């Protein structure tokens, strides 16, 4: 498996609280991504990064922000969590090749 880890793996939080999910890679890949996986929607791109401090919005970026201060870390922040953000979040990385490698996912529940 590619060296990519997500933390935490599970989290339950209350509506209105801030939440930060972390993606850490040891592959020195340039590109990093955050997806959410929901039944009936598949995986949808939230934000992506193409280098340190270089990020951009994906398909479903409202309510989310990201930061990448180091090559190896890509943080996803929900500033004020809502129930609609209950989902499974996946981080992915890719380098010069076309293959993307995925983390094991973070199951987030907003109550």
């Amino acid at each position, binding site marked *: 498996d590619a060296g990519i880890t997500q933390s935490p793996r599970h989290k339950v939080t209350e509506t209105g609280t801030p939440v930060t999910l972390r993606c850490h890679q040891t592959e020195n890949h340039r590109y990093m991504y955050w*997806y959410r996986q929901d039944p*009936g929607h*598949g995986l*949808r791109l939230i934000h992506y990064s193409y280098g340190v401090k270089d990020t951009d919005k*994906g398909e479903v970026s409202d309510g989310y922000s990201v930061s990448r201060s180091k090559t190896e870390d890509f943080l996803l922040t929900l500033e004020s969590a809502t129930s609609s953000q209950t989902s499974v979040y996946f981080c992915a990385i890719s380098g010069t090749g076309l293959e993307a490698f*995925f983390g094991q996912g973070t199951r987030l529940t907003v109550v």
Partner: protein
Amino acid sequence: AQRVTQPEKLLSVFKGAPVELKCNYSYSGSPELFWYVQYSRQRLQLLLRHISRESIKGFTADLNKGETSFHLKKPFAQEEDSAMYYCALRQGGANNLFFGTGTRLTVIP
């Protein structure tokens, strides 16, 4: 805009039967298409990419530009093929992948 369409949410076949998971795409340029698979309790992983024209675990997929399709096929399904399958289109300079909604394949013993 819907870039990738997987019309079947669920697909069940008997062991040994042929299986075809459908994928259609919409893209004006030269598409780069992939199939990813997620086995139970495992992370998403690449199964096939169209440019390599390879066969992995007995699966093949041919890009048909005329029909804008990239269907995944296997002549004889095995129980271990039961999983969630996603078709994906690469678009954009950052290798962004856009996924279909997925098809859950169940192979019945």
